Every structure is written in C-alpha cells, then in structure tokens.
C-alpha cells in the first residue's frame, strides 16, 4: 500500500509539463506528443537506468547491472528488498543461462522461434529480456506477450509486475476479454491471443507494438493460428516489428518452416527422467482402471503426489469421491497413509483451484506411513498449470476435445483419444521435482497404432464464422488462400461464409456489409452480435443485452449431485413456460433486485445459482453496453405490463438464431432440426413446459443421444417474417418441415389478402 501512495504523489508532481530531454534514439518529437506525456517527468528521466543503452545492441552484462539497482531502471524508484530476493531466484532459471544467446538471435533476426519446456521460465523472463533490449517505452510502443488463457495472462502479469517491482496495471499490465488492466505507462502487456487479434482489427499493422511474443504457440489455439497467419504478412510490411514464437514442445521445426526458416533457440527445462508403464491388455473401463491404479500407487509406491487425468467435471468429481472413500478403507486397514484428493477443472472457482497447491497431508500418527495428495484433473494440468511435487501420473489416454463438423453444423465437446504429443506432455508432469513414473492405461501397441501424432489444432475443430468476420474486418480479402499453418477443410469456410451471408453480415459477393462491420465490433459470436444489434427494432435491447451477457458466461444454474431435487425446485421459481432463455433473464432480473443485492452471495447460494457466473455476466453486460453506446445503438425496453414484453424478446431471439431452429416430430418428444434434419431431443435441463412445436436452441450437444440445450419456443410465422432468406420455403427439401412451413406461408398470405379486401 505504501508504494502506491508514494507513487501517486510522484505522479501528481509530474503533471506539470516540461520539455523533454533528448533520449536515446529519439526520432520523435516527444515533447509535442500527448501520448508521451508520461515521459515529461524529470525524476524518471534522471533515474532512467537505461539512458546509455543502445536499442538492439545491449548485452546481458549491461542489463544485469541495471537490474541490480539500486534504482528501478524503468521507474526510477528505489528497489524493494523483496525484489532483490526474487531477482536471485530468477537468475537460477534455465533461460537465464542463455540470455546472451537469446539477445544475439533476437537482435539479428526479425522472427525467432524459442522452445522452452514448462518450468524453463520463458513466459516470465523472455519478455523482460526483450524490454531491456527493445526499450519500447522510448518509442512509445509496447511489448505484447500473448497467452491462450485468461487466467494465465492475469497471473503471469501479476508475477512479472512483482519481479519488476512495479504496480500491476502500470509498467506491466494485462488485457483480456471484458477486462483491461493497463495504463499509459504500460510497456509490457500480457494479453489473451484473442485480444491481440481484436486489436489488429482496428490497427492492421499493430503499430502500438515493437515486439510481439506469441507464447504457448504449441497449443495452437484458434486465435494463435490466425495471429500467426496475420503476423506472417505484417512482418513483411513492418520491418521494425520483431516476432518471437514460443513453444513448449520440440515440434518447433514446423514453426520454423512456416516462418521462412526463422532461427531457433532451445532451452532445456528442468526435468527428470520418467519411467513409463503400459497395461498388458486394453482396459474395459478406463475410469475404473484409473481408480484402481491410483489406489495401487497409494498402497505400494514411495512418497510423492499423484496426478490423474480424466475428461470432465462430472467424471472428475465422481472419481474424487470414490478415491477418497476407498483410501479411507486403506487407512483403516493401515495399508496406506492418508490421501487427500483435489479436483481440478476449468469451471472450478479459483479459490478451490488454489487448493491443489496445498501440501500433502502429514502421517496420521508420528512415524506412520506418509500422506499423499492426488489431483484429478482435466487436461488443464497438461501444459498450463505447473504443480510441484507430482511424481506419479496416471493417464487413461482421453480428454474432452472440441469438435466441429460443418456438414451437420455441430460444435461439441467429445471425449476423444489424446495424441502421442499429449501423452508425452502428460508423462513429463511426473518428472518436475524428481524422477517419476507414468502409468498409461493402454498397451504400448495401442499407443503406437491408435494415437495420432499431434492433437488437431483448434482451427480444424471450430466453427469459423466469427473468425471469418474478424478476418474480413482485418482486411483479408482472399480467405481461400490465407496462409494458415494447418488450413481447415474447405467445407468449414464454405459453411462459415454461408452462415454470415444468411446473417446479412456478408453480401452475396462475400463483402462485409454495414451490419457485418458493426457485428465485428462485438467480441461475440456473429449470431449473438446480430441479435444484439437488431434488438432495438424489437424494442427490447436492454433485455437482449442481458441475455447476450448471460449466454457468454458459464452456466448460471448450479445443480450439485447431493442436492439435485432442491436445486431443481429453486430453478422452477424462475422458470418461464416459454423457455430457458426467458428463464435465464428472470434469474438475472431477480439477481439485480434490491432484495438479492443486499447479500448477493448468500442469495445465489440459497437459490442454487452461480454467483461468479452472474457477476461475470454483469461485467460482460457493462462492457457490451459501452460498445453499444459507442456504436449508437439504442437501449430500450418494452414496458413489462405490455403483453408483448416476452414476445418481443422471443422475436429478437429469432433474428439471431433462426439457423438454430427445430420442429417437433409428430406428437412425440423428438424434434428435428431445420435444414440439417437431425433428430434431437430437448436437453433434460430445459424448463420448456408446454408443447412447443417450434423452438430456437442455443446449442446442439452431441452425445450418444443428440440434444438441443437452452431452448425457447417460437412461432413459425416469425421465422418466415424475420428471416425470409433462410426460410425460402421453395428451396426446402421435401418433408414434414417444408409442408408445415408451406401451411404457415399460405395462412399468412390468406390473412394479408383478407386485410387487402378490407
């Protein structure tokens, strides 16, 4: 707190403008540049420890001297004791030994591929090495370092701010969707890859940055792949821009080849050998086999923690319960020491995620068998999270992976076999602290024959509608020849273009329309963005704004396995007979009521709602509202007393989701999706009570049964009225849906004729 106060006084004293002294390569007239006002600070100038540094010609020695202090080379304030402590640790990291080598390659070439295993310190250290040589603040630019995950961007920025002895959000900041923690002084910005992509939409050459670091490139997220394609072109236009691709796996040659044979630097991680065991025969039930293996390790192996990979929340929670119960039996029989089991998955609240770092439990009695912790995790623990103390890894060989198929337009998470690369990564987690063991629950020949080499990059497994819109906005005309590292199947692009055309975001020539350009301003799926933009026409933009926010966050309803009945009763309090969208809206309105806001946490707990999700929705709503105001989209509501209140909302829903409509098949429970003609069932979680012949759905979930989730009933007349291009009845395949639509069309015609007669 003390530092903060000190800083604010300093800041206010600097508000008086002073002429700027010539500094380094000062090509710009900084004194007249309002963006560089923060330079006009006498103190920081005299204290600038880097004044004699020559850009792109510095050495490790120089940088080390500057790092040693006593003043912070970037802020001019004296360095804290804590900083000195951290500095010592930092210099022990594997990357530090190769700082010289790194600087040489960085200075020599425009693009550099850097390979460092997890634990090498690359994410925190390399950007700082760059700062000392690139000195982006001297040219009013920044260094960007992208991360695939929001949490990583936040936590790494926090850590690096500490390492540099600065306040987070000042010299070091982060920017993630719906949250920007940077300031005018920011010179190093950690951000999600998606955010950098959005910035590129407004600044096609990314002129704000002097160096861009794409971290965790091996994860091959959609945004990273698109960024690589873009930056490959930008570096040709901007010779002053430097690009570093950082990857954790040794498959770096692919990156090298893609970036015109850029030089490669590899830093070994700190890993120990891991012994790998296979099962003698294929397992009949991988979950059960995993539980057995964990308990076997616990009963027979030496001290050391266990990491078990499973596929999803439900499976993990179930496994945790079973392992705990069985372990208690073992303790009772004195066959093993105490075992604490922690789940780990993306939607787990951060406080609970933190628990995995708590130490293993002590023996039950002095001198007894040592305790152990066991973490049951999704593939988050595969690359992004580093947990020390893991010695045993149990790998059943599955993970949940997103799959998209343009032929039936379904994007779903499916349990699928992992790749060989993934299996190696998992095994590596056992060797972080000391030599470890990895138990693969499949045979060696299955590993060789059945697993694919590399996990498919996300770009091959995603609906590209939103990406296509972004690329169009980025000025990429020819999407067919856009140079992606792994281009998806042509049908994927075809479907995306078609969807955007029906949404009127692209015209028939494939050119961006006004609506499309506007939709690209929102960090949302095109269907959601279009729904939001046209909602004023339905007099319900306030409600659609809330709904859009609610659809952009994790599930708001909580349904704990131990208390399902009560949770369902609570959900019924909010239920709207016309469907789930309206129910979610009821929840949000109740959440914003005075009664709930008195103690929102308790209120959510009592009503089996996720406080975190609702709070997040609130935040998202605020961000989207700002964009709407900026784009001059009017915020309005139909009066609640008006009987069209809910109807208007449902109609606006159709305006965005008319391509996600299903019709009931006969009189049964089954539905059939329009055009794709897939047989689906309503997801059991739906509140839709009455018999609804036509519904819009938010999601098509593929399991052994096909489900549609989050559904609301609509009228077929609206479909023909609001989306006449898509509902061009003559073009429909012959069948029940066509007949039904024809019937509706005739009815409308007749009504209009009658009106005409009158």
């Amino acid at each position, binding site marked *: 707190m003390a530092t903060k106060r000190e800083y604010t006084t300093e800041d206010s004293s600097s508000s008086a403008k002073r002429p700027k002294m010539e500094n380094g390569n000062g090509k710009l007239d900084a004194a007249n540049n309002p963006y560089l006002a923060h330079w006009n600070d006498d103190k920081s100038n005299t204290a600038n420890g880097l004044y004699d540094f020559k850009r792109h010609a510095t050495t490790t020695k120089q940088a080390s001297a500057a790092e040693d202090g006593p003043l912070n080379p970037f802020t001019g304030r004296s360095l804290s004791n804590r900083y000195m402590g951290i500095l010592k640790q930092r210099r022990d990291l594997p990357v530090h030994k190769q700082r010289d080598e790194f600087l040489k390659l960085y200075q020599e070439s425009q693009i550099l591929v850097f390979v460092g295993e997890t634990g090498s310190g690359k994410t925190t250290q390399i950007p700082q090495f760059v700062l000392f040589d690139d000195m982006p603040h001297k040219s009013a630019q920044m260094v960007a370092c992208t991360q695939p995950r929001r949490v990583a961007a936040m936590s790494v920025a926090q850590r690096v701010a500490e390492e540099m002895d600065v306040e987070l959000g000042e010299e070091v900041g982060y920017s993630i969707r719906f949250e920007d923690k940077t300031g005018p002084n920011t010179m190093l910005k950690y951000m999600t890859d998606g955010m950098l992509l959005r910035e590129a939409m407004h600044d096609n050459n990314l002129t704000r940055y002097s160096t861009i670091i794409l971290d965790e490139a091996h994860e091959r997220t959609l945004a990273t792949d698109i960024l690589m394609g873009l930056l490959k072109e930008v570096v040709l236009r901007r010779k002053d821009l430097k690009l570093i691709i950082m990857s954790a796996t040794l498959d770096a040659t692919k990156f090298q080849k893609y970036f015109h044979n850029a030089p490669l630097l590899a830093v070994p991680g700190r890993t120990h050998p891991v012994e790998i065991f296979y099962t*003698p025969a*294929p397992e*009949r039930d991988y979950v059960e086999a995993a539980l057995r293996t964990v308990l076997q390790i616990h009963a027979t192996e030496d001290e050391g923690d266990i990491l078990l990979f499973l596929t999803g929340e439900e499976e993990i929670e179930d496994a945790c319960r079973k392992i705990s119960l069985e372990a208690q039996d073992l303790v009772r029989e004195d066959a093993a020491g105490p075992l604490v089991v922690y789940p780990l998955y993306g939607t787990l609240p951060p406080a609970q995620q933190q628990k995995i770092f708590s130490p293993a439990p002590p023996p039950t009695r002095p001198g007894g068998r040592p305790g152990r912790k066991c973490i049951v995790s999704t593939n988050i623990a595969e690359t992004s999270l580093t947990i020390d103390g893991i010695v045993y890894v149990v790998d059943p060989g599955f993970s949940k992976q997103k799959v998209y198929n*343009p032929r039936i337009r379904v994007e779903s998470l499916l349990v699928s076999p992992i790749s060989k690369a993934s299996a190696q990564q998992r095994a590596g987690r056992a060797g972080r602290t000391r030599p470890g063991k990895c*138990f693969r629950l499949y045979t060696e020949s*299955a590993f060789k024959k059945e697993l694919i080499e590399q996990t498919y990059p996300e770009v091959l497994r995603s609906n590209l509608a939103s990406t296509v819109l972004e690329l169009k906005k980025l000025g990429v005309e020819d999407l067919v020849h856009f140079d992606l590292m792994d*281009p998806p199947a042509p049908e*994927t692009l075809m479907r*995306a273009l078609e969807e955007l055309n029906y949404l009127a975001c692209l015209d028939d020539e494939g050119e961006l329309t006004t609506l499309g350009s506007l939709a690209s301003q929102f960090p949302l799926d095109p269907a959601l963005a279009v729904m939001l933009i046209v909602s004023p026409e339905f007099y319900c933009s306030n409600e659609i704004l809330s709904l859009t926010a609610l659809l952009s966050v994790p599930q708001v309803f909580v349904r704990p396995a131990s208390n399902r009945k009560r949770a369902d009763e609570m959900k019924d309090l909010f239920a709207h007979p016309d469907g789930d969208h309206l129910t979610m809206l009821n929840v949000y309105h109740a959440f914003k009521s005075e009664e709930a806001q008195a103690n929102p946490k308790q209120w959510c707990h009592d009503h089996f709602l996720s406080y975190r999700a609702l709070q997040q929705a609130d935040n998202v709503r605020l961000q989207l509202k700002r964009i709407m105001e900026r784009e001059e989209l009017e915020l309005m509501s139909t009066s609640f007393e008006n009987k069209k209140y809910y109807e208007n909302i449902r109609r606006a829903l159709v305006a965005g989701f008319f391509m996600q409509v299903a019709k009931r098949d006969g009189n049964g429970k089954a539905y059939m999706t329009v055009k794709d003609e897939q047989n689906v069932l309503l997801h059991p979680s739906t509140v839709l009570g009455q018999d609804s012949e036509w519904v819009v759905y938010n999601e098509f979930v593929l399991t052994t049964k*096909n489900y549609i989730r989050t559904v609301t009933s609509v009228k077929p007349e609206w479909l023909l009225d609001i989306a006449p291009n898509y509902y061009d009845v003559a073009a429909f395949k012959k069948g029940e849906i066509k007949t039904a639509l024809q019937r509706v069309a005739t009815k409308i015609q007749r009504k209009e004729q009658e009106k005409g007669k009158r």
Partner: protein
Amino acid sequence: MADSDEEEDYMNMVFDDAPKQPTHETSLQRAARKRKEGEARARQKSKAEREADAEAAREASLATALPETNKGFKMMAKFGFKQGDTLGKAENARKEPIQVNIKEDRSGIGLESEKKRKLREAWDEAARAAKRSKEEEGDYLEDRKQQQKEKKMERDLDSAQRTAERLSEEEAEEADGPSPEEKPLKHINVLWRIRARRRVEKEHDWRQRRELENSLASRLPTLAQEDEHNDSKVAQGHDVTPFYASLENDLEDEDPELAEFEALPVSERLTKVLVFLREKYKYCLYCGYQYPDAAMEGCPGITEEDHD
C-alpha cells in the same frame, strides 16, 4: 391422421411435388399402399428405433459433402476455388472435415480394435483382401462407398435381427413356450443368437466389475507385475484378461454354429435374416410391415434397392 394429412395436402395445392405414381397401379393396389403408409405413419416409434434413426440421419449427413450450390462455395469460387481444392498455402491441407466419433462407453484405448480383431478375424481377412485389390485399383472413392455400404448393412442386420427376435418371442409367448431367458443359448436361432450372446457377455462383465469393485483385491495392483504367476493373478482378481479370453473361447470353440454364421460376410448374413423374416413372418424390414398373406402383395422385393 392419414385423412387429415390428405386434406392438408389438398389445401396446400402441392400436387407438383407429389411423386409421379406408376400408371399401372390399380385402385386396389393404391388402397393397399395408402393403408400401409398410413399405418406406418401412425405407429409410434420405439425409443431404440428413434435412436437408431437419429444415428442413421447423423451418419448420412456426416458422409455428405456440402454441395456446390452452397452460397459459400460461390464466394470462394471468386478467388479461384474449385471442387477438390484445399485452402491456404500448406502442402498437406485437409480436404475433408475431421471425423466425428462419439464414444459411447468407457472402454479403454485399443479395446474396441482388440475386440473386433478377435471376433471377426475371418471376415476381416476377407475384407482386407478385397480392400487390397481395391486399393491397387486406386479407387479410393469406391472404397469409401463400400465401407459406408457395409456400415449401413451392419445396421440393417442389427435391426433385422432385433425384429426377428421380437417376432419369435411374441410367437413363443402366444404358444406359451419357454421364455427366452430360460432358453439355453444354443436353442436360439443362430440368425440372431449373437444378440443373446452379447447380453450374456454384458451381464458377465457387469458382474465381474461388481465383484472387482466390492473386493479388496480390486484396489491392489493390476499393472503388469512380472514376478507374479498368471494363475495367482487371476485368482486375486489382479488381471481380468484370462477370464474374458475364456469367454471368447466359448464363442469360438463351443459354438461352432454361431462362429460359422458370424464368419460370413455381412451381406450374406443380412440376406439370410431378411429371407427368414419373409418366409417365417411375412415381414419386410424395408417396408417395416408384416403382411397378412404369404404373397406379400405390395412389397417390391427382398433388398433395400428394390425399395428405392
């Protein structure tokens, strides 16, 4: 139901789309057809049938590429894209979307292939030989088509077997015969005995798993332990493989009739079951209808192609 539909059709004036009826259809034939169609429509589909339908529709869509009439295709054509091209500039770019495979159980990696290998080795061999000769011709598309056809046949076979089993059970019930559970496997008609066999196997599995879960032994080592003798492993429940192996042996050694039938190519098995259904129950799978008399008037033939 049928009536109301006809009425709607009339109001909508959709005569253009109505399929052209063969001119030689007599009024009696038409009446029979209408009645049959009406009955088929009115019948509520069972849950299993619905699921099978859903899966079939999904598989069919997944196997069909987007047509050139797609609006996106035209936009791509503007930049020189032609059918069969790939995107981007990479050499080995994808032509087809990634397959969607839905995992329906919790079987471990490699189990599926292991099972298949053991159960249908003979048939596999034949298929491999056929495939090899096809590959030599380099006719990839033909090969894909054949695979799909076989998959479809397997599904048909399954539903034909299910129907046969159901009809025979119904018959047995009417005749007050022994209920199928009491019937030893060998007394079940070989044409659908595999279904009963699978049920028995599943039961065994389930029991075995229950035992494993309940016994202390289940918590103890199962990963390869070299020093232990195989038999003692089995005795302790450490390794369940031998148990299953013996079960599979059962199938192959002690039931040569079933093994022989299962070794036949799928098309042959299907034809056998179809013919049986027709002869014994006057039932046609593709009409989905049990005819009142042996003439089966109105049914165009045995195979699915006849019904096109």
